[in-house]
């Protein structure tokens, strides 16, 4: 046994002696009360205080509970007819317990009074207790309360009326302070983070018990002579007193249970976790639902979550927004960061992080790959967007440049041909040139339309798809459940899906009709092109369908070509609308 343990054992023996001695005095003096209950009421606090001293060294709640337990027996010892003790029994035994109980409640679970308000409330309660004790020492005359045989020196200024005034003033002040006390408890709850609230839950039970104790106290008397009701109230009050230290000890030790959860975590991590599960495992272990696990990329200060999405470390924050960052390092390099509630025990967090060490390293690698994949996806999307921008630019240049010039040239040639001075041979040649030119204009127009259709920019997807249907050699039915504009990349991708699909239908499907369906649902555009042809289209072979699949998947969409059993071909693309 360590020295500490010896010390605690000694303390326990002394306390037990104090308690049993006090109770023996009461029995010996024939005080008519339930001795067992009285003994247990104090012992519960003494035992609880010693357990907390042992398990939570440094927490003030342990010594406070022992102090409460010791004061409990002052009244008993006061029955001993020796100087001073009876007086102390009457004053301390009756009035000193309340501020200690309040300090325990307000400093729960850390043992420290954290806010100025808590300190003020506790301070005032102590001040009130000191004041009433001093008043009693000065004015209390035991004979006035009927104790003729009491062997103590009368107070310097014995006065029954002054005593009554002092106790009445103390009770009124006590009622006000009780309100402050409950306000302080409520403020604790309001300002607590979720994990802190979890720790504060036992306090609520304790506060209810304290309230019941004081309510019962108004009717209770430890002496059976006061009547069966008052005596019963006292018995009940004492039972609740016994419950109080049990609640505090259980609450304070439940963090101990969390420590053993680290062991469970190690067992859990023995099996490989699916990616992203580690965060919820740690969150469960540390009982902090807000816990976040980020991984460090090789670059300085870049963090990603398990899915590879970039995140940044949070600022410290205030009140119940407060966050604490615990870094997990290897060879001095940050590996991961646990972002958690500041109320968590730092040792416990480090223990959990150490237990999850290998799993963290594995998941970091996975997250890194995800982050790279994410970057590749983004760059693919940018490449497609850049290509589309370039297509639009080329089409605009053709329209404003070559097509415009050719139209003007056709007009000039026509003027020359129709001119009166033009001889017939030249007019013929001009007419031929004009015909060639018109052919060129037509071809250029089809080329420009294929590069980027003007109607898509001008009037949106349904109009552009209608235009495709208008030019298709077979009947095409269109069903669109919207007529609004969508983001440009979505419109462009969907347009080329329909365009390529209809071109394939016309070229290879031997179909008699086709149907295009455009529908929007939950931020996704669904494009479906169905025909009644021979089927057999394979996106792996045709470069057109392959290109469409690439384009749609670059936008995080899906693309599929199916040949249903009944024949025909179904091209289905789902393209996100927010890309």
């Amino acid at each position: 046994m360590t020295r500490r343990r010896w010390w605690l054992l000694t303390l326990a023996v002394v306390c037990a002696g104090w308690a049993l001695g006090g109770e023996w005095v009461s029995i010996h003096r024939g005080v008519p009360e339930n001795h067992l209950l009285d003994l247990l009421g104090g012992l519960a606090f003494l035992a609880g205080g010693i357990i907390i001293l042992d398990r939570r060294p440094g927490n003030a709640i342990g010594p406070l509970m022992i102090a409460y337990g010791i004061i409990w027996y002052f009244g008993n010892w006061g029955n001993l007819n020796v100087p001073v003790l009876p007086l102390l029994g009457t004053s301390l035994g009756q009035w000193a317990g309340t501020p200690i109980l309040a300090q325990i409640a307000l400093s729960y679970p850390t043992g420290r009074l954290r806010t100025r308000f808590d300190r003020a409330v506790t301070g005032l309660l102590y001040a009130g207790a000191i004041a009433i004790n001093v008043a009693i020492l000065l004015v209390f005359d035991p004979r006035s309360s009927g104790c003729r045989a009491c062997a103590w020196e009368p107070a310097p200024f014995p006065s029954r009326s002054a005593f009554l005034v002092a106790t009445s003033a103390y009770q009124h002040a006590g009622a006000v302070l009780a309100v402050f006390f409950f306000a302080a408890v409520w403020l604790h709850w309001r300002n607590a983070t979720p994990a802190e609230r979890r720790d504060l839950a036992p306090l609520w039970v304790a506060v209810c018990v304290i309230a019941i104790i004081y309510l019962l106290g108004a009717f209770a008397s430890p002496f059976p002579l006061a009547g069966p009701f008052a005596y019963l109230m006292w018995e009940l009050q004492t039972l609740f007193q016994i419950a109080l230290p049990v609640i505090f000890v259980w609450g304070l030790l439940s963090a101990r249970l969390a420590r053993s959860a680290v062991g469970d975590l190690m067992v859990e991590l023995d099996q490989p976790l699916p990616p992203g599960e580690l965060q919820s495992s740690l969150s469960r272990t540390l009982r902090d639902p807000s816990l976040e696990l980020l991984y460090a990329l090789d670059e300085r200060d870049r963090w990603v979550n398990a899915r590879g999405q970039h995140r940044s470390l949070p600022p410290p924050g205030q009140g119940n927004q407060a966050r604490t960052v615990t870094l997990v390092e290897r060879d001095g390099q940050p590996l991961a960061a646990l972002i958690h509630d500041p109320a968590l025990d730092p040792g416990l967090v480090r223990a959990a992080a150490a237990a999850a060490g290998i799993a963290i390293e594995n998941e970091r690698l996975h997250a890194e790959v995800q982050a790279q994949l994410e970057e590749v996806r983004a760059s693919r999307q940018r490449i497609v967007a850049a290509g589309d921008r370039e297509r639009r630019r080329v089409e605009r240049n053709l329209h404003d440049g070559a097509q415009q010039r050719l139209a003007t040239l056709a007009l000039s040639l026509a003027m020359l041909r129709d001119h009166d001075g033009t001889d017939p041979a030249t007019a013929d040649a001009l007419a031929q040139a004009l015909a060639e030119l018109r052919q060129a204009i037509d071809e250029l127009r089809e080329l420009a339309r294929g590069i980027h259709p003007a109607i898509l920019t001008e009037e949106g997807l349904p109009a552009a798809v209608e235009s495709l249907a208008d030019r298709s050699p077979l009947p095409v039915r269109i069903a669109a459940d919207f007529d609004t504009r969508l983001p440009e990349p979505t419109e462009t991708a969907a347009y080329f899906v329909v365009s390529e699909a209809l071109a394939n239908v016309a070229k290879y499907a031997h179909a008699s009709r086709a149907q295009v369906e455009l529908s929007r649902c939950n931020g996704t555009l669904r494009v479906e092109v169905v025909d009644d042809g021979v089927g057999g289209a394979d996106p792996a072979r045709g470069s057109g369908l392959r290109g469409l699949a690439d384009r749609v998947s670059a936008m995080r969409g899906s693309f599929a070509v199916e040949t249903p059993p009944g024949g025909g071909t179904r091209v289905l693309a789902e393209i996100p609308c927010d890309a």
Partner: protein
Amino acid sequence: MPDRPPPGAPPAAIRVVLADDSVLFREGLARVLAERGFLIVGQAGDAETLHVVVGQADPDVVVTDIRMPPTNTNDGLLAAQRIRDERPGTGVLVLSQYVETRQAIKLLQHAPQRVGYLLKDRVSDIAEFADTLRRIARGGSAIDPDVVAQLLRRRGEDNALTGLTGRERDILALIAEGRSNHAICERLHLSPKTVETHVGSILAKLGLLPAADDHRRVLAVLMYIRNA
């Protein structure tokens, strides 16, 4: 009555406003039309100027390109619709590098008169283009043959259109392009009586009521072909 030309004098020249962002094309078209006896009363390079110029010059017909500044998308089309709303007596001919059925129908939908929708390079068929402009000024309409051909090609397979004879289909296309019976006679070298008979037969086969005027007939036929 100072505005009315004296009896026997040639009819007053048709007043035209031209809008296109290419000065070269605009000037060329202005010269061609002036030679054909049109009076060019104003020119504009963008949709807003067009609106101002039309207000000042009070033209019979406006010829405008679809794609113009400020947005370089369909400003010309919007300007044309605005002119038609504000000045029902002014004809509008919209030119475009591309023709779309949807736009054609949109233009005709509310009032199928004094309106035209043509591919831009149709202007190089000067005589035909001048005819079209006069037709619009008189209250007629003009739809690009490409639009009509596109529709007929697509709808040709599986409806009442298959019941038409070859000649009837030719005439149907010309009706859809906005031509009057008289113009159809000239074009196909047929007598007015024959054309009238064909037209009656076509409308009956398609289940369309004989329209009170040629203008409404265009829209009815276009819509029929499109929705068949």
